[in-house]
């Protein structure tokens, strides 16, 4: 799918983790409805890059732009346009799925209301619609810690959707899930990208899944420049660049 309208971009982005460069001069454009996979071995800096893209870590040099605005100086109204999904779901276990999703609406409340957790009826309705979107409506009233891993990740995605994001950054969202649930979560993220026009950036370990899922892949390797290419052009040479070995395609674990 061709990227239409860039929502997330980096310009000459440089980020080091300690002394080690993660990205050097990265220019990246992610469009509306586009799925970008971050691929690379452990230690390549995928999580650091995601934290940098979300504004949780400042760049050492260069810029991260969300809808044209520097992520460093995003106000509350723009910051809510970036949603993050985590490997460990990061739900509050002892409250309901619905209340977890409502947390995604906090960025839309006046600060005093947010501090008291006083949501408007439209926020509650929207939270239910987000749970419906991820197939979890019937479990809205259940405590998050009684849900399976796959269900929890769906609730976390519903919470992300409640932010009405332009971008969802997913950091290893399927690493804690079995293959069936993992594939279902990736399908859901892609479907959200396609139908809602959200740009999805997702770090993954599984090469074959990434190639099948993504429109584009950013291959990251320790101490090497990142490579950015369409998923269908990912081949054994690219893999060798990232992982240092050439896999037999079709037999990659």
């Amino acid at each position, binding site marked *: 799918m061709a990227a239409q309208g860039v929502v997330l971009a980096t310009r000459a982005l440089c980020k080091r983790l300690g002394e080690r460069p993660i990205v050097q001069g990265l220019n990246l454009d992610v469009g509306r409805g586009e799925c970008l996979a971050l691929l690379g071995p452990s230690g390549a800096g995928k999580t650091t890059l995601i934290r940098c893209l979300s504004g949780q870590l400042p760049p050492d040099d260069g810029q991260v732009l969300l809808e044209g605005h520097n992520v460093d100086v995003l106000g509350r109204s723009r910051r809510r346009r970036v949603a993050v999904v985590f490997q460990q779901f990061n739900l509050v276990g002892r409250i309901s799925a619905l209340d977890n999703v409502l947390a995604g609406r906090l960025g839309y409340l006046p600060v005093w209301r947010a501090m008291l957790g*006083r949501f408007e009826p439209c926020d509650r309705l929207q939270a*239910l619609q987000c749970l419906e979107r991820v197939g979890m*409506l019937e479990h809205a009233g259940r405590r998050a810690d009684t849900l399976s891993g796959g269900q929890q990740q769906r609730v976390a995605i519903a919470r992300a959707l409640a932010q009405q994001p332009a971008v969802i950054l997913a950091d290893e969202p399927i690493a804690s899930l079995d293959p069936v649930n993992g594939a279902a979560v990736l399908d859901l993220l892609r479907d959200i990208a396609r139908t809602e026009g959200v740009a999805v950036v997702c770090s993954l370990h599984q090469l074959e899944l990434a190639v099948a899922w993504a429109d584009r892949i950013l291959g990251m390797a320790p101490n090497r420049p990142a490579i950015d290419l369409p998923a269908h052009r990912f081949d054994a040479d690219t893999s060798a660049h990232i992982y240092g070995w050439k896999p037999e395609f079709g037999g990659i674990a």
Partner: protein
Amino acid sequence: MTIRALSFDTGGTVLDWHGGIVARLAAVCGKRAAGLDLHQVANDWRRRAMKRIVGQVHPAFNMDDAHRESLVDTLSAHGLADLSVTQREAIWSVWYQLDAWPDFAPALAALRSAAPVVSFTMLPTALVMSVSRRNALDWDAIVSCEMIGMYKPHAPAYITAARWIGLPPQDILMVACHNFDLNAAHAAGFKTAFVRRPDEWGPEGPPEPEPNMDYTFVVSGFDELRKQVLTTR
């Protein structure tokens, strides 16, 4: 006896929630309703919503939210988990479109000619406004626990309602069909009237159809209430 104002519980006492909800469930569920006991679904929803709201102190939600959210578990418990949010909203909104018991509007008009009458309710203000307009119920005021921030049966809810009505509790007659409400009103100093509503819960019948203490009045309908109050006053 001095009765200078009356306050009416509204949800269960004035409104036929059971009948309204059953009809709406039937309309939304269509053919699927055939295999279900919709009376049971309606009552289950009511119980779950009441459990959420009764006794709340400054909650971050109101009865609308309690209705909306308790509907989720209710539908799941009755094999209706796949209803969409749109269908759920259609069910939820029936609360804004309920009918009052037919004997209420005439009694209200007659009582108001003698004394102020207010709705004193756990339902949201907007909801009572909606059903009041729909059923041509003219109150002197609506006092929602949502406004007070303290829900029945907490004593401060009753004390505050009396203060807002501008009278000492002993000059106000609290009218309801539920013992928990009247017990609390009595404890707060109100005079009390128990109105039997045998159909409130549909065929199942009310959990407590009879008074559990000595109230000022015990009546079988609003017409009887009107007569007794207006003659003893």
